[in-house]
């Protein structure tokens, strides 16, 4: 170890992994992972959220899974809650859609209306 900057660089890298253990985050991404969600492809959806959130250093976003949300035909379903805002429910998610939701909704605060459950009707 030669310099403090070298140490700090290692720290930034190592932090990515530990972010997961912080439970004080205010933005929640909830992925439905019951049998219905998993068979519709929720697993890669969840993993992509984890990776994108980490890549973009969104320290305030917690990605968790939940059981059946109760609308199995629309799986994979993802719910996003931001402080003081109504919950947004995305349906028929896949990994490409995840990337767009992360950049538009989580980073820039613009809901991707086309993917939401409201757009179905």
């Amino acid at each position, binding site marked *: *170890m*030669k*310099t*403090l900057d070298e*140490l*700090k660089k*290692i*720290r930034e*890298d*190592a*932090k*990515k*992994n*530990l972010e*997961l*253990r912080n*439970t*004080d985050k205010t933005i929640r991404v909830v*992925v*439905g*992972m*019951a*049998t219905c969600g*998993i068979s519709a492809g929720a*697993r890669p959806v*969840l*993993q992509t959220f*984890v*990776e994108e959130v*980490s890549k973009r250093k969104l320290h305030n976003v*917690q*990605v*968790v*899974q*939940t*059981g059946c949300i109760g609308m199995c035909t629309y799986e994979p379903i993802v719910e996003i809650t931001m402080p003081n805002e109504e919950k947004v429910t995305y349906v028929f998610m896949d990994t490409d859609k995840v990337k767009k939701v992360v950049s538009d909704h989580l980073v820039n605060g613009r809901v991707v209306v086309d993917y939401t459950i409201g757009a179905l009707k």
Partner: protein
Amino acid sequence: MALYRSHVLVCGGTGCNSSKSDMIRQRFEEKIIEMGLDKEVQVISTGCFGLCEEGPIVVIYPEGAFYSRMKIDRVDRIVEEHLFKGRIVKEYLYEESLDKDKLKSLNEVDFYSKQKRVALRNCGVINPEDISEYIARDGYLALGKVLTEMTPVDVIQVMKDSGLRGRGGGGFHTGLKWGFAAPNQADQKYVICNADEGDPGAFMDRSVLEGDPHAVLEAMAIAGYAIGATKGFIYVRAEYPIAVKRLEIAIGQAKEMGLLGKNIFDSGFDFEIEIRLGAGAFVCGEETALIASIEGQRGMPRNKPPFPAIKGLFGKPTIINNVETLANVPQIIINGADWFRSFGSEKSPGTKVFALGGKINNTGLVEIPMGTTLREVIYDIGGGCPNGKAFKAVQTGGPSGGCITADYIDTKIDFDTLTDLGSMMGSGGMIVMDEDNCMVDIARFFLEFTVEESCGKCTPCREGTKRMLEILDLITQGKATLEDLDKLEKLAINIKNTALCGLGQTAPNPVLSTMRYFREEYEAHVLEKRCPAGVCKSLLSYYITEDCRGCTKCAKQCPVNCIEGSVKKLHIIDQDKCIKCGACMEACPFDSIIIK
């Protein structure tokens, strides 16, 4: 680095480990592979979470779900439900962590909410066998800062300003100690970490070493730089195999990354650390005895002065600090002296870790700001005495300390307040006693410990404590007189004043403090031949009441055949022959046997 969506943290501290947490971790690993989740979920063995009563403990992130009293046969369901399908298995959660149906975060749980974690900040949070997790939590940043931006004089000044006092028992100012050693010229100086932890019931140092070994290594290097030492020793008892193993791993990783060894941070500063195993003698925790033990001599104390800062290990200037003291150091360097002073009390800044044990609901390890009251620790954090029993006293400071009664339960805990009450902080053991504890018996327990651990070098301790124990034995057998009580007190004061080291000087404390607060209990043993708490066996008698139906069960159980009586007739115990084993009482189906 692989990115996981979920972390399973399994407590790998000695407490949980002894209830098979290693096998629980193994089963998690197997089941996770079986379910094909091994690329998504990481299993980590951590240090102690503190809530040992509820162990083995498993915490799953990102939810922070706190599973308590884990069993191997619960693992599969948690993997299938929680990790695979995202459904937290609520019935296995620690009850207090649920608010109706909502998961509370850990720092909202009663046991944790009043705590302030500085020395334990990484315990139960990181993988102690992975240096990168320590670095992620600002590890080695303090060492880097010290070596690249501060002079040794600056470092000592920050330590002085922080007001940190030694957590090993004495409460001596750490900055002052370092300041004594720094100006001494010598070809070699040493830093020693005292991890002997001999107090019965204390396990804070073990938990720091098991949960956050790098914090201690980093602090030792900082201390080395401050006083001009290039070599450190950790003196740890061999009974702590997990701590030793994690220290070895940590030293290896730190060396590999150049955080120990030569020319650290390109500053020209070299520092290396070696481990020395102790055989578990209490006296070897005393600094001069410890030094003798590292030198390969018999672990016996010597007179001070000269103090180790002048003439220590191998005759060279040496500072010796306790594990918990050291664990505070990197935090003080990073956050500053004012930050450290922002909690705790005026004369005892910072926090202290206590090992809560005895008659208390939440046995475990707690770290609180100094100045927290005993009441908060015992009731709010500890959950009070089990089975609704009344709190009687709390013993602090182990065999060197004393007890504090319910009258003083609103005392704000710090070094000075405890000493004023005739007890002491010691290393932080806190044993809670309820109405069923006999105070003479408690004093006897601690004195028996010191008699066994006395090294025998000085007469007051070697002979004096033994005589004290003999008098205590007489008291518990109902054979003592009031003169014996006076003799006991006089002897105690003499030993305090004349013993060579802290062991003898403090050994009478448990007796003196119980005599001070519970004189009437001593007198009941002497004058009435009665043990009010019903503990001292020789003073108890078993009697059979009129409720006896003559079933003969008790007589059949009695190992010395001292129960007379025929079928369907009242039975009688022959008091002369009775050995008070209690077997009859357990055997009686009608609860007709009582103790008087």
